[in-house]
C-alpha cells in the first residue's frame, strides 16, 4: 500500500500556488483564503506523518513507480517528518502575520509563499542528490522573491547580495553533484552511500573533494562563518514575516549537512568516512562566537535577531559537530525551540517597531508604545526563551546540549561559548527591553515634533498578535512535553546516525546487506 501522504506536503503547495497564480487578479482575500487553507491542510498532514514516523519505520515514496535507485525517491524518517512539521507550523503562522498587510506591499506574495514551502519541504524529503539541487533552486528562487517583496533601497541591496552569493553557490553545488555522479555513477543518496563504502582508494581524493565542495555550499545556506555575512542584512531588512519564515531556511542547511554527512560520508563510508570530523566543530564554534559578538554589537532588534539566527546555527552545528547519537538528539531538541523563538522575535520586533514612530526597532529611546503590557509581555517571553533562561524551552534545550556533549575535545569550548554567549545575549536583550519599555521619552516633549506629525501608530487587535502569541506559546509546550520530545529526539537520532536504516528502507535489505556486513553487522 503506497502512502501518498508523503508527497502531499509537496504537491499541495504546488497546486495551491498555481491556483493562486490563476486567481492573480482576484480580490486579495480570496488569495489569502487559498494560502492559509493550504498551509493549514499541510500542517495537519505533516502532523499525521509525524505520528506515523514517531513509532514506525522509515517510509519511502518512489515517484513514477520506477525501482530504486533509478527513479527519484522521497524518504520520510523521523527527522524529516519533524522538519516538515516545524516548517508547516511556522509557515502557517508567518502567513497569518503577513495577511495583516505585508502581502499587499507587492505582487504575487501568496504564490511565492506556497512555492517557498514547496521548496523547503522538498529539500527535507528528497532522497536524490540532484533532486535536492532542484528543490534548493525552487526554495532559493522563491526566497529571492520574498526577500525583495516590498522593495526599497536597503532591501534591494541586501537581496542583491543574498541572490548573487547563492547563485554562485548553486553552480558550485552542481560541480559537487557532478563529481559524485562521475565517480559513483548514481544520484540516489542511499545508493551513493553504498557505492561510497565500496569505492577504491584511488578515488578517495576526488570523492572527499566532492564532499567538501558540497559542504562549502551547505555552509553558505546554513550561514556558517565565514559564509554568514549575507544574512544579517538580508534578514534584517526584509519584511518581518519573511524573516520569520527564513528562521527555518538556515535550518535546511543544517538538516542537509546532517543528512549528507551522516549518510553518504558516514563513519562507515570507506574512503569518505568522517569527512567533516575536523571541520564542522571549529567552524561552528567560531560562528557561534562571532554571532554572539553581532548580537552584542547590533543597534537594532531586527539585526540582533538576525545575529541570533547565526548564533543558533553555530550552536546547532557545534553540538552536531561531534557526530554522536546523544549530541544529535540534543540538537534535534534544540532545533524547534530556536527556530520558533527567533521567528517569534522577528515578529515581535515588527509589532514593537510599528508602534514606535521615530525609532522603530532601533535601540534608541522613543515615546512609549501604545500597548506596553501586551508587547512587553511578548518581548519578555521571547527574550527569556532565547536567552536560555528558565522556565522556557531555551533553558532546557541548553541544559540538554551541555549534558550531552561529553568527552570530546571541543566540550570545554562548547560549554564556555554556549554559556558565555547566553550571558551576552542576556545583556543585549535586557538592554533592548529596558530601552523599549522603560527608558521612555515624555509623550510630547517641548521642542519635539507634536504627536499629530506622526503617522498614527496602529493599535493591535487580537488577529494581529495571535500568530506571535501562538509562536511564543510553543515554548512552554516544548517544556511541558519535554519528556516525550527528548524520547522522540533520541529515536530520530538513531535513524540519522546509523545509515543502515535509511539504506535498507530505500534500497531494500539485499543492497544494504554488504554495507552492514562491512561494518560487522548492526
Amino acid at each position, binding site marked *: 500500500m503506497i502512502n501518498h501522504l508523503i508527497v502531499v506536503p509537496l504537491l499541495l503547495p504546488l497546486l495551491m500556488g498555481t491556483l493562486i*497564480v*490563476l486567481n492573480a487578479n482576484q480580490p486579495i482575500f480570496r488569495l489569502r483564503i487559498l494560502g492559509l487553507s493550504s498551509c493549514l491542510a499541510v500542517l495537519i498532514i505533516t502532523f499525521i506523518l509525524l505520528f506515523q514516523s514517531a513509532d514506525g519505520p522509515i517510509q519511502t515514496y518512489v515517484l513514477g513507480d520506477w525501482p530504486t535507485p533509478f527513479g*527519484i525517491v522521497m524518504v520520510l524518517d523521523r527527522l524529516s517528518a519533524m522538519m516538515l512539521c516545524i516548517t508547516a507550523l511556522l509557515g502557517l503562522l508567518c502567513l497569518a502575520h503577513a495577511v495583516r498587510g505585508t502581502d499587499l506591499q507587492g505582487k504575487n506574495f501568496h504564490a511565492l509563499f506556497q512555492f517557498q514551502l514547496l521548496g523547503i519541504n522538498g529539500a527535507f524529503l528528497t532522497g536524490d542528490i540532484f533532486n535536492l539541487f532542484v528543490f534548493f533552486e525552487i526554495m532559493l528562487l522563491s526566497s529571492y522573491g520574498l526577500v525583495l517583496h516590498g522593495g526599497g533601497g536597503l532591501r534591494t541591496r541586501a537581496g542583491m547580495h543574498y541572490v548573487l552569493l547563492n547563485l*554562485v553557490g548553486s553552480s558550485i553545488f552542481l560541480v559537487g553533484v557532478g563529481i559524485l555522479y562521475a565517480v559513483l555513477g548514481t544520484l540516489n543518496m542511499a545508493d551513493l552511500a553504498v557505492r561510497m563504502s565500496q569505492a577504491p582508494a584511488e578515488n578517495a581524493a576526488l570523492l572527499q573533494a566532492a564532499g567538501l565542495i558540497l559542504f562549502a555550499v551547505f555552509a553558505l545556506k546554513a550561514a556558517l562563518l565565514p559564509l554568514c*555575512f549575507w544574512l544579517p542584512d538580508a534578514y534584517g531588512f526584509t519584511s518581518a514575516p519573511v524573516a520569520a519564515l527564513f528562521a527555518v531556511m538556515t535550518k535546511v542547511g543544517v538538516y542537509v549537512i546532517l543528512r549528507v554527512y551522516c549518510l553518504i560520508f558516514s563513519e562507515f563510508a570507506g574512503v569518505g568516512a568522517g569527512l567533516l570530523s575536523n571541520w564542522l566543530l571549529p567552524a561552528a564554534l567560531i560562528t557561534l562566537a562571532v554571532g554572539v559578538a553581532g548580537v552584542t554589537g547590533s543597534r537594532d532588534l531586527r539585526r540582533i535577531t538576525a545575529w541570533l539566527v547565526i548564533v543558533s546555527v553555530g550552536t546547532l552545528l557545534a553540538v552536531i559537530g561531534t557526530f554522536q547519537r546523544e549530541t544529535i538528539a540534543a540538537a534535534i531538541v534544540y532545533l524547534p525551540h530556536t527556530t520558533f523563538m527567533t521567528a517569534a522575535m522577528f515578529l515581535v520586533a515588527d509589532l514593537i517597531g510599528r508602534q514606535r514612530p521615530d525609532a522603530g526597532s532601533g535601540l534608541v529611546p522613543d515615546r512609549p508604545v501604545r500597548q506596553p503590557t501586551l508587547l512587553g509581555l511578548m518581548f519578555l517571553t521571547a527574550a527569556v526563551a532565547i536567552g536560555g533562561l528558565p522556565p522556557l524551552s531555551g533553558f532546557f534545550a541548553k541544559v540538554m546540549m551541555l549534558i550531552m556533549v561529553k568527552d570530546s575535545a571541543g566540550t570545554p569550548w562548547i560549554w564556555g561559548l554556549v554559556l558565555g554567549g547566553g550571558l551576552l545575549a542576556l545583556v543585549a536583550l535586557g538592554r533592548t527591553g529596558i530601552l523599549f519599555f522603560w527608558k521612555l521619552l515624555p509623550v510630547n516633549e517641548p521642542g519635539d515634533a507634536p504627536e499629530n506629525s506622526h503617522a498614527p501608530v496602529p493599535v493591535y487587535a487580537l488577529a494581529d498578535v495571535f500568530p506571535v502569541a501562538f509562536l511564543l506559546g510553543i515554548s512552554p509546550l516544548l517544556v511541558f512535553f519535554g519528556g516525550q520530545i527528548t524520547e522522540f529526539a533520541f529515536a530520530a537520532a538513531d535513524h540519522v546516525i546509523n545509515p543502515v536504516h535509511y539504506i535498507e528502507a530505500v534500497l531494500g535489505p539485499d543492497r544494504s546487506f554488504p554495507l552492514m556486513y562491512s561494518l560487522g553487522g548492526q
Partner: protein
Amino acid sequence: MTLALIPLLPLLGAFIPCIFQNRHLNAASAGLIAGISLVLLLLQTPLVFTGEIPVYTRSWIPAIGLTFAFRVSGFGFLFALLVLGIGLLIVLYARYYIATEDPMGRFYTYLLLFMGSMLGIVLSENLILLMVFWELTSISSFLLIGFWRHRADARQGAFMALVITGGGGFAMLAGFLLLGRIVGSFELTDILAAKEIVHAHPLYPITLVLILTGAFTKSAQFPFQFWLPHAMAAPTPVSAFLHSATMVKAGVFLLALMVPVLGGSALWFYMVSLTGLITLMFAAYMAMFKDDLKGLLAYSTVSHLGLITLLLGIGSPMAVVAAVFHIFNHAAFKAGLFMLAGIIDHETGTRDIQRLSGLKKAMPVTAVLTLIGCGGMAGVPLFNGFLSKEMFLAETLGPGLTGAMGWIVPLGSVLAAVFAVAYSIRMLHGVFWGQPAADLPRSPHEPPVGMILSPGFLMAVCILVGVFPAFFAGPLIQAGAGAILGPDMPDYHLAVWHGFNMALVMSMVALAGGVVFYRQREKLFDAHVWCLRYLDGKTLFESLVAWLIQAGNRLIRFLENGSLQRYLFVFITATLVLGAIPFAVSRTPLLGPVPITPLDPATLVMGLILIIGAVATVKTHRNRILAIIMLSTVGLVVALAFTRFSAPDLALTQISVEVVTIILLMMALHLLPTTTPKESSKTRQWRDGFLSVLAGGGAAALAMAILTRPYDTISDFFLAESVPGGGGTNVVNVILVDFRGFDTMGEITVLAIAGLIIYALLHGFERKAPATDDMGRPWTRDRFPMILAYIIRPLLPLALLFSAYIFLRGHNDPGGGFIAGLITATVLTLQYIASGIVWTRPRLHYDNHIIMALGLILALGTGLTSWALNYPFLTSTYEYVRLPLIGKFEIASAMVFDMGVFLVVVGSVMLMLVKLGSINSEDARTVSFSARLDETLDNKPIEKEAH
C-alpha cells in the same frame, strides 16, 4: 503533592492580583495566596521537627535527569518560613506603601512570582529544578527593582542585578551539571551522600569554583557586592523582602546546602572564608559613610551576608549552627529596619541622614522599633543579633583556624563588629536624636497602623528571641542546622549568658569601639572620600558593558563590511581550499587509467574559438554590447560541443536558450549603462585574476581527473527500459518526462517562479530609457525595423508549426516540450521586437500568467491521474494509435506532461520578456492583464506608433 503546591501556588496565582482594579483586592488576593502556601508549609511541621525529610517526586525529562521533585528539610523549612512569614508582612506593608498612581496589581504579581521562585529554591530536591527557580528569582528581582521604570537609577540597578545574578546563575548551572555528571544524578539526596566521590574527582576544583561564583553573585559577596546597594532603587518593601531577608540569602542557603558535599576541603575553606571576611569588613566599613538610610542598610546587609559566608567557610558544626541562627536573626531585624526606613522616607519625604534628625518626638513608636532593630544589628545584649554574633566571634577563635588565619579572622571580625556598632548608632542617633529637623519635605508624624504593624511584629520577634532564645528560636535552629549537619550535630544551648569568655570580651570591645568611631566620624569621612574613587563597582560594570558593546560592534563592522565582492571572494576561496585539501593530503594520483582519445582539428578549432571568446568577454567587459557578442559566441560553441559529443537535445536547448538570453541582456542593456567604469584597483584586479586562474586550473584538473576515470552508471537501466518502460526511443527525453519527471516538474516550477518574481519586481516600475548611450550616441528613433516586421509576420504560423513538430517528435528524436516552448516564445518575442507592443499585444490576446498556470496544472494533473489507479505520483503509461497521414503514432501520458512543460515555458518566457520590454518605452502603460484595456487599445490608431 501538597509539597509541590507550596511553591507552585504563588507562581500560578501570580497573575490573580493583576485582575483586580481595586487596591484592597490586590493586596487581599496576594495575601490569601501566600497565606494558603504558609498553611500548607506548616502542615509539614511535625514531620520536619522529628528530623524526617518528606519528598515528592514526579518524572519530567529523564534524558537530562530532570525530575519534578521537592523536599522539605529542616533547613528548607526554616527558609520557607522566613519567605512566607516575612512575605505576608510585606504584602500588608506594601498595601500602604505603594502610592496610588503606581500599578499595585502588577507589583503584587511580581512579588508573588518572586515568592514562588524563592520557595522553589529552598524546597527543590532536583538540582536542575533548583536552577530553574534560581534564575526565576533573578528575573523577578529584575522586574521588581525596575518597578519605578521612569527612574534612571532603578533601570541601571535592575539591569546590573539581572546581568550579575543571571550571569552567576550560568556559572552555577555549569557547576551543577558537572556535579551531576560526577555523582551521576541530580537528586539532592544522592548528591549529599556522595562527598567522597566528589572530593576525589579531578573536576572537583572547577566544579566548586563555578558553584561558589553563582552563590557569591547572588549573595553579593566581594567582588560582586556592588549590585546590591544599587538594587535599593526598588520600592522599600522589595528591598526589605528580596534584598535583605530572602533572595540575597539564596547564596548562603546554597553554600550551607553544599557544605556536606563540597565543604571540608582547603580550597573551600580559603575561598569561602576569605571572601566572607573581606565582604564583612569592606561592606561594614562602607556602611558607616552612607547618608542614605537604605544605602546604609544595604551595605550592612552585604556585610552580614559576608559574616554568614565566613561562618560557612569555617564550616565547623558550631559555625554552621551560628550561621543558621544568624540567617534567622538577620532576616528579622534587617527586614524590620528596612520597613522602618521606608516609613521614615514615607512620612518625612527624605532618607538622608544628614537632613533627618530629632524625629523621636514626632515618631516615638518608630523610634522605639528602630532602636530594637539597631540593637540587633549592632549585637547589643538582649537583642537577637547579640546571640548569633557572639557565637560567631567564638567560632573565629575556633581550632579550625590555624596559622595566619588564626589571628586575621578574629581581628577582622572585631573590626567589622566595631564598624557595625558605629553605623547602627549613626542610624539611630542621627535620625531620632538631636534638634528636630526644620526643612523636611513633609511634617513628620506616625504612619498608619497597618504600616507600623509589620515592623512591629518583627521587632517583637527580635526581642523575644533575644531574651528567650532557646524557647522561641531553639527548635527551628535545631531542625535547620540538624538538616545540614545530620549526625555530627553538636549539643549546645542558646542562652543570653554564656559566662565570661573571650567572645564576650570581643563583643564589648566592639561596642565600645563603635561608640568611639561614631564620635570621631568626621575625621573618617575625609579618608573615605579618597577611597570611594577606587571602590565604585558600578562605574566599572557599566564601562565593561559599554566596552563589550563597542567591541562587538567594531568586530562586526570589520567582518560584515557590506562588500559583496569580499563575500564572494571568501566564498570562492573557501570552496577552492576545501576542494584542494584532499588532493594535497592524499597520495592518490590525479589522473585515472582511461586512455586519452585523439584530438581532431575541427574540435581543436572549436575549442580555441571558445577559449578566445571567453577571454574576450573578460577583456571587453567594460564595453558591454561587445561583451554580450563575445559571450554569445561562447554559448554557441558550447552548443556545437554538445552536437560534437552526441548530445543533440542539449545542442537544441542550448541554442534556443542562448537566443532568449541574449535578447534579455540586450533589452536590459537598453536601460543599464552601456559601459563599466574603471574603478577596481590594480591590486584587486591582480588578486581576482590570481584567484580566477587558480579556480580555472582547479576546474580543469577536476575535469581531467573525471574524464580519465572509469565508472559504472545506473544509466544502463534507462537505456534498457526507455522503449519498453517509457515508450520512447529518445532516452534523454524519456528520462526528463518519465524516469526523472519529478526533476522536470521542479524545473518548470522554477521557470514559473522566475516569471512571477520578474513580474512582481517590474510591476509599476517604469524607467525612461536614456536617449543616448554613455558615449552620447543617440539610440535609433526607428524602434520597429520595417523589414523585420514584414518578414516575421508571415513567419509566425510556419514557426509555430515547426515547434509543434519539434514537440511531437520529442519523445523519439531530439526535441520535446521545452525546446518547442522556447522556439514558440522566441518567435512571439520577435513579433514584439518587430512591431512593438501596441501592435502585437491585442493580436496575441492571452494572459501569460494563465498559460503558465495551466501548464503547471496540466503537468500536475497527469501526475495525479496515476493516484486514481493507486500508482505513485507521475507513473506513466503509453498507447499506440494510427492516424491518417502521420501513420503509426504513439501517445504517452508523458506527452501530456510534456505539453505542460511547453505551456509553462511559453507562458513564463513571454511573461518575462513582455514585462521587461514594456518598462522602457512610452507604451509601458498599455501592458496589462485585463482584456478591457486591450479593447481600448484596439481602437487606438496603430500607425502613429509603428512608423
